[in-house]
Every structure is written in structure tokens, then in C-alpha cells.
């Protein structure tokens, strides 16, 4: 769409050239796929023995594999859901703390946040799982994963919330003050609800990140899908097939989530346009109408 600006509407000769290019690219891709398949077949990777447990319902391992895979996936979903809910809560509190505290207090919140943001999530998860038991706090493995994920993601979500609040027009807080609301009332009942609406797409994208990161549970032996696959492989001896299947499951779920984020974003931007639309709906004489040319969406 917006990239079509790089070239003109193709004429007959260019169309022919594009056709030739398409055929060449298609053939090259097909050759690559065939080569890979031949290699896999030569290595005995396309046999019923390898794929049966995943694809063939008549295979003796099929039902057990998918039941356990489903249970393991539920563990991922559980961890992701809890981590998302907690990060949202904690992230909002952190963002509010950074906005409302006096200067010194602001720094005491901001400094730890910067540290957490610079750490790999594997480390926060590993830290939670090893350090908390050493300090005498024993929890189910799920909670170490959730705590590790929350420690990192609440900081990211705090940034999203802060950006959401900053994106609101000043008039909103001024109007709230004018009708006599306190700062806290204004934040809770006027600013935050609007900010959350604007942030919804970013929050859904972060949910995708959290869901992907639940697969790091394998580091602490939490039986999520990757760890489950490692166990199942010892029995079934088909690592390639199982990891492909798991990859496909992740891609499917996260793809649907991302589509949802795009859909929500589109809906919100449509609705958002209606309210402050007076100048934009009828372009001022000197200004070009910017309806069709969507070159935005930078950084």
C-alpha cells in the first residue's frame, strides 16, 4: 500500500517484467523447498514413524501426545495470563508513582526500573527461581516464572502507560481540575481510562511478547510446551517434528493476537477521529487533505 509509492502503476512492459520476476522467484522458492524436502527424506525425517504421533490420529501416541501438549500449553497460557495481569497492575502503579511522586521519590522508582529494563528476562526468571527458595520462600514453579516475567514486563508496561497518559490532550486534566476534581480523582476517572483505551494495541503486543517468553519456563524446569517437548522427544525421538509443531502453535496464537491488536487499533483510530474531527474533517483552505496517503506509522 504505502510502499507502492516506490514505483509507478506498472505499464505493459513492466507488468511483463514483474511476471517474469514472479515466475523466477516462485521457481527458485519451489526448488529450495524441494531440496529441503529431499534432504529431509534422505535423512528419514518424513516417515510415518516421525510424523505419525503429531499428524496421524490412528497412531498409538497421537492422543497422549496432543493431550499432554494441550496441558503444557495451558501452563503457558496460565503463566502468560497471570504475568500480564500482574504486570498491568504493577506497571500502572509504577507509572503513577513516577508521575505523582516528588523529584527524589521519582528517582527512587526510576532507577530500579532502569536496572530491570536492562536485564534479560531469562535472568529475572532464573533469579526468582533460585534466589527466592534460598531466602526461604518456596512457591510452585509457575509462580517463579510469573514473578520473573512480571519483574521485567511491569517496567515495560509502566512506560506504555506513561506514554499513554502523555499522549492525552492537556485540556483533559485542565477540565478535570476546573470541575474541582483532585489530582488523584482526575487520574483515576478521567485520564487513566482514556490512556488505557489508547494503549490497548500496545498492551496486546506486549501480551504477545509475554506469551513468547513463557517458553523460557524451560530454564527452571517448569513444564510448559518447550520443556514438555524435551521430555516427549526422549520417548518419540522426533525433535524436528515436535519443535516444528510447537513453533506452528506459537506462530498461530501470536499471529491471531497481533491481528487483534491491528483490528483494535483501527477501530480506536476510527472512533477517535470522530470527536476531535472538526479541523480534520473539513480541511482548511491552505492545507492538503491527507486522507488517502497513509505514509505515517514511523518509529
Amino acid at each position, binding site marked *: 500500500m*504505502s*510502499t507502492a*509509492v*516506490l*514505483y*509507478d502503476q*506498472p505499464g505493459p512492459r*513492466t507488468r511483463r517484467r*514483474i511476471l517474469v*520476476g*514472479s515466475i523466477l*522467484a*516462485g521457481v527458485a*522458492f519451489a526448488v529450495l523447498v524441494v531440496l*529441503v524436502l529431499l*534432504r*529431509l527424506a534422505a*535423512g528419514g525425517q518424513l516417515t510415518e514413524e516421525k510424523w505419525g504421533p503429531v499428524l496421524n490420529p490412528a497412531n498409538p501416541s497421537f492422543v497422549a501426545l496432543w493431550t499432554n501438549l494441550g496441558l503444557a500449553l495451558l501452563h503457558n497460557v496460565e503463566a502468560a495470563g497471570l504475568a500480564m495481569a500482574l504486570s498491568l497492575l504493577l506497571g500502572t502503579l509504577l507509572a503513577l508513582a513516577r508521575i505523582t511522586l516528588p523529584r527524589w521519590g521519582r528517582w527512587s522508582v526510576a532507577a530500579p526500573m*532502569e*536496572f530491570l*529494563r*536492562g*536485564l*534479560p*528476562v*531469562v*535472568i529475572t526468571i*532464573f*533469579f526468582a527461581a*533460585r*534466589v527466592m527458595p*534460598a531466602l526461604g520462600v518456596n512457591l510452585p514453579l509457575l509462580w517463579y516464572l510469573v514473578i520473573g516475567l512480571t519483574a521485567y514486563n511491569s517496567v515495560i508496561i509502566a512506560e506504555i502507560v506513561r506514554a499513554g497518559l502523555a499522549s492525552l490532550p492537556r485540556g483533559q486534566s485542565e477540565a478535570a481540575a476546573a470541575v474541582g476534581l483532585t489530582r488523584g480523582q482526575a487520574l483515576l476517572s478521567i485520564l487513566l481510562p482514556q490512556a488505557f483505551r489508547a494503549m490497548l494495541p500496545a498492551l496486546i503486543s506486549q501480551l*504477545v511478547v509475554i506469551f*513468547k*517468553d513463557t*517458553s*523460557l519456563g*524451560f*530454564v527452571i524446569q517448569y513444564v510448559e510446551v*518447550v520443556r514438555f*517437548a*524435551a521430555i516427549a522427544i526422549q520417548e518419540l525421538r522426533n*525433535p*524436528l517434528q515436535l*519443535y*516444528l509443531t*510447537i*513453533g506452528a502453535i*506459537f*506462530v498461530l*496464537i*501470536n*499471529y491471531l493476537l*497481533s491481528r487483534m491488536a491491528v483490528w483494535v487499533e483501527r477501530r480506536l483510530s476510527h472512533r477517535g477521529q470522530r470527536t476531535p474531527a472538526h479541523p480534520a474533517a473539513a480541511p482548511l483552505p491552505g492545507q492538503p487533505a491527507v486522507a488517502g*496517503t497513509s*505514509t*505515517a*506509522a*514511523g*518509529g
Partner: protein
Amino acid sequence: MDIILDNIGLYRDGLLMTLRICLYAAIGSMALGTAIAMFRVSPIPPLRGMGTAWVTVFRNCPLTVVLFFCAFGLPELGINGSYLWFGITGLVLYTSAFVCEAVRSGINAVPTGQAEAARAVGLSFTQSLRDVVLPQAVRSVVPPLGSVIIAMIKNSAIVGAFGVGGELFSVQARLTSAQGLDLIPVLLGVAAGYLIITIPAGLALGMIERRVAVAR
């Protein structure tokens, strides 16, 4: 604190190994990601489709799964190598999807008029992309690309958790299980190692961002 100071050499080697992995992975993923971004903006539909599919797959698949797949899948395709190289390959494949999106958003941020002017003076698709659009896109690509690379540095810890020895995260296993040292200080040392890389990188990125930013 003593534990960290006593083993400072091991930490330093781990840090250097992490930096080496990241250097190779950064070069690889930037090359691959830019190539795929070119695919995604090209006028040839199958190339566009392949680019989109690539990004969809690698952006939505956890790095863990990509790494396991590299370690078990590539040998089946006759590609053999050490865990280190599988780890770097996995990191490159995964990061390339994010690099691609950063580059593409940069291309989209170049004002329409630039590309139109390039076409008006008769430049071809390749010429207008290479001589007009990309040089300007670089400016708006730097900030998101920097964030992608910093995320990649943090992701390299997963490569260590996955079994590539000698890298910063794996220093922890070596010190605690092999030498039986106290876990908390050892882990704090590892965490400090990552912060030594990521915090200055973030500050440097902020500075570069301010320098290349142009008012449009």
C-alpha cells in the same frame, strides 16, 4: 562481593564471549533483515509474500523454539556445526524479522514526495531505493534498530541458558554447580555484566537518536 572479584577473569571472559556472539549476530541479522525488508517492498508479489511470511514466522515464534529447531533441524539438513554456531544462527534468524520491520518502517517514514521526485527524474525502482529513499530512511531506522540490537544482546542470554558454554549467563552454572559457590552473589555478578552492556548501549542510542533526528 569477594566471589565476584575472585572470579573476575571468568566474568570478563563471559562478557567478551557474549559480545562476540552479539557482534556476529548483529552483522548477520542486519544483513539478512535488510534483504528481507527489500523483499517486502519490492514490486514482485512472490518476494513480498515470502518476506511477509518470514517476518510473521520469526516474530511470533519464541527464540527458544527457534534455537531448539536450529540445533535439531539444521543437522538433518546436512548442516553441522557447534552449539555456538547454531546459537548464533538462531539469534540471526529471530532478530532478522525485527530488523526487517525496523527498516521497513524507516522506508515508510520517508516522505512520499521523495520517491515521487526520484521516479519523476526517471530513476528505476532499484536506483530510487538505493540512492534516494534508503539514505534518508537510515535516519529514522537508527532508533528502532538500536532497540532491536539491545533486545538482541539481552536475548543472547537465552543462547547461554540453552547450553552454549563460556558466555556470560553460563558463567553462573560454572561457578555454582562446579565450584559450589553461593548463588546470590554469583547471579548478581552476571546481572551486573549485562547491565554493563545494556545501560551504556541505551544511553549511547539516546545520544545518536538526538543527533540523527531531523525535523520533518
